[in-house]
């Protein structure tokens, strides 16, 4: 059979400009994990129902699993691997470790990305705000309460540092 023609699109990932073949509605998650080797975003369902694949597109949480890669052309995508550049992500990761907010950890990358978007919007969220922001994420290990505490801990730390975005 003949191969379909490529559809090259350019976008930014974690501050780096990339160009990938996005033909055939290939999902953003496949491009991130496969072509770009960014395996921090995870495949959980491919159905926008678990949040394991959550990334930020222009700062807003977005499911990478079913969203076609072409839809992020000329946009800016952030993944958990941005932790080295983004002090808020770094603070979140540290807070998750301080609270030991994880068991298998498979759900965590996506959750941290949603929490990142929350803190941009609301630097000191109360418990209800954190729960609302994370409610579309699933965690089968049952780490929810620690995760909520970790997000609030990161917020408190950032507030103390005066560095919250």
């Amino acid at each position, binding site marked *: *059979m003949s*191969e*379909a023609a490529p559809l090259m699109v350019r976008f930014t990932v974690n501050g780096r400009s990339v160009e990938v073949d996005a*033909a*055939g509605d*290939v*999902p953003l998650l*496949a491009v991130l*994990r*496969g072509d770009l*080797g*960014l*395996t*921090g*975003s*995870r*495949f*959980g*369902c*491919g*159905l926008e*129902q*678990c949040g*394991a694949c959550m990334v930020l597109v222009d700062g807003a949480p977005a499911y990478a699993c079913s969203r076609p890669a072409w839809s992020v052309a000329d946009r800016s995508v952030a993944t*958990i*691997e941005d*932790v080295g550049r983004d002090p808020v992500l770094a603070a979140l*990761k540290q807070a*998750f*470790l301080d609270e*030991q907010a*994880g*068991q*298998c*950890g*498979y*759900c*965590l*990358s996506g959750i*941290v990305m949603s929490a990142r978007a929350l803190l941009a919007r609301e630097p000191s969220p109360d418990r209800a705000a954190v*729960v*609302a922001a*994370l*409610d579309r*994420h*699933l*965690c*089968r*290990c*049952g*780490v*929810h*309460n*620690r*995760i*909520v505490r970790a997000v609030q801990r990161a917020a408190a730390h950032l507030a103390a540092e005066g560095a919250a975005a």
Partner: protein
Amino acid sequence: MIANQLPRSLADNPRLDAWIGFDAPGQVRIATGKVELGQGVLTTIAQIAAEELDVALRRLRLVSGDTGEGPNEGYTAGSYSVENSGGALRIVCAEVRALFLERAATLLDCAAQELDVEDGAFRRDGRPTGFDYWRLAGDIDLSREATGGAAPKPVAAYRLVGHSQPRTDLPDKIGGGAFIHDMRMPDLLHARVLRQAWRGAELGALDERALHRAARRPIEILREGSFLALLGADEASVEAAAAVAREKAAWSGGERPPDEAAEAGWLMAQPAAERVIAEGEPAEAGERIEATYSRGFIAHASIGPSCALAHWDGTRLDVWTHSQGVYPLRQSLARALGLDPVAVAVRHRQAAGCYGHNGADDAAFDAALLAMRRPGRTVRVQWTRADELTAAPFGAPMAVRLGAALGPQGRPAGWSLDIWSAPHGQRPGMHGAVNLIGAEALSGAPSRVPPGDVPDANGFGSARNAFAPYDLRAQRIVTHFLAGHPVRTSSLRGLGAFANVFAIESFIDELAEAAGQDPVAYRLSLLPDPRARATIEAVAAMAGWSPDAPAGEGTAKGIGFSRYKNKAAYMAAIAEVELDEEVRVARLWCAVDAGLVVNPDGAANQVEGGIVQATSWTLKESVRFREGRAGCTQWDTYPILRFSEVPAVEIRFMDMASEPPLGLGEVAQGPTAAAIGNAVARALGARIRDLPLSRERIIAALM
């Protein structure tokens, strides 16, 4: 610690060098047959080893779950890891430390008792001697059998054990690369496998051109019997073709399960092997109280669908898997593929949380078979969400019927318990069967061997926690084992304990009510074991339990208690529920007696995770079958507990550091369900005996 009684893992793998080595300067290799499933076991085991050796934790390099290296400890299951692997390493490390100290003492011409160890360096009177483990490693031959002769440290001397340690593996898991799903190999061939609609289902003719058309890049179609796989270098193309195959596949024959395959009435009407586990005493005269409780199929529902990789070079098969038991899997793979087990290397790689026998082993078979059909390529099989929810084995449905009469002072008499259960153990190799679904789909697959129940020595399967911990004079316990249940069921966290504890603890509440007694006081009056009583008293104090709390007012507390497997950790739980048409568990308190807790924070994390998961099972989860197929293909149709539904949890560990550690990974499942069930019965003023306590059942009970 009794020095001359070796834990099972050590008796099976007696050589010291199977467990430990000083291969690289400044490092200690610690091997364990237990694997990280998200439960933090590697951190706990490292603590135990580092404690006995007196080295810093960071010096340990853990080797885990590799058939080429390290001990064979069967499966990582049943909350045995700390007891068995931890118990073995405690003895091994104490012995190795003693051997090295003796050698150092000889070289220094002093008595071993004059020496101590500080981060691997041997000191005399607190001063360095110039010797350490690594310098003396060449002098000591560890290829000898453990004797169990060296006394491990007394608890009072512990510096690491009993103190919370952060998980060593967690930092990498917030980021990329930590999971089997992230492994990248050159020349990778991606694969998807079509799952049979039900056991024994035969695949009809499939329009292969339609599959090729759906793929954007070239794919291969491999079919053997009813085993159909799509392979290709481009994962998206393989998935696109697989989606069409799933939609177009037509199935016939086989064992189509009926829609009611999980219902108590159906289970109790099936042919079953009856076994009297305990004779009991003749039924008491007087009014007999009877009640039947049930649970349905529960899916493992791991957040990451199963994945495996394999490579065949013509003589040797390499498999990477997230199986709970690399050695048993190797045996089954070799048998199913006609290979000598020594030609197969199986290595554990981490994946999303595993709570029992899920799809990991089956995915490994898929990859292994396909690798042998495509020599020289590494084949990567990725299951879909629907595969994970419907093709992995389910937790077994059960019905539990209890009966007793009330004797003097309202004490139960003539206690009987009958269990109807589908199998709780169909892991690879169990009961002499291969037990891999891919192998069952091949043409000419051998007919299925009827499974047995999990052996009593492994803590029972359907009868796990069937013995009520109460002073009942004699209990009659009978299992009715449904070996022929058409749905593939196997081990899920707690096995039979989830339903048995729910049933027994619900029934105790029902008896307390009939006797006009407070459920907490009633339990305390019937419990002979002081540790059991202490956990119940502790949780009652934590929750502010009051005997005169009103019933039938939409909010209430309920209690549940068990000692897991009747020999592992104790847990007493109190749930507070709020109820309209749905149940909300607002708070859950629990007291746990797990003896010496090696890593308190890790243990609390495990117990809380168990509570949250059991809350989800209790309120929401059951798989429905329609036209032979499991209806839970997505999270939409198999909802689990969400952030907004998770109770506030308070956990207290009893101070029991002088007692041996007791397994606690599965302790929460039964008591949580029972506490919620009892709270709901009080809040509702009516009892629901079938799990889950779903919206429909609450509404029905309200009418």
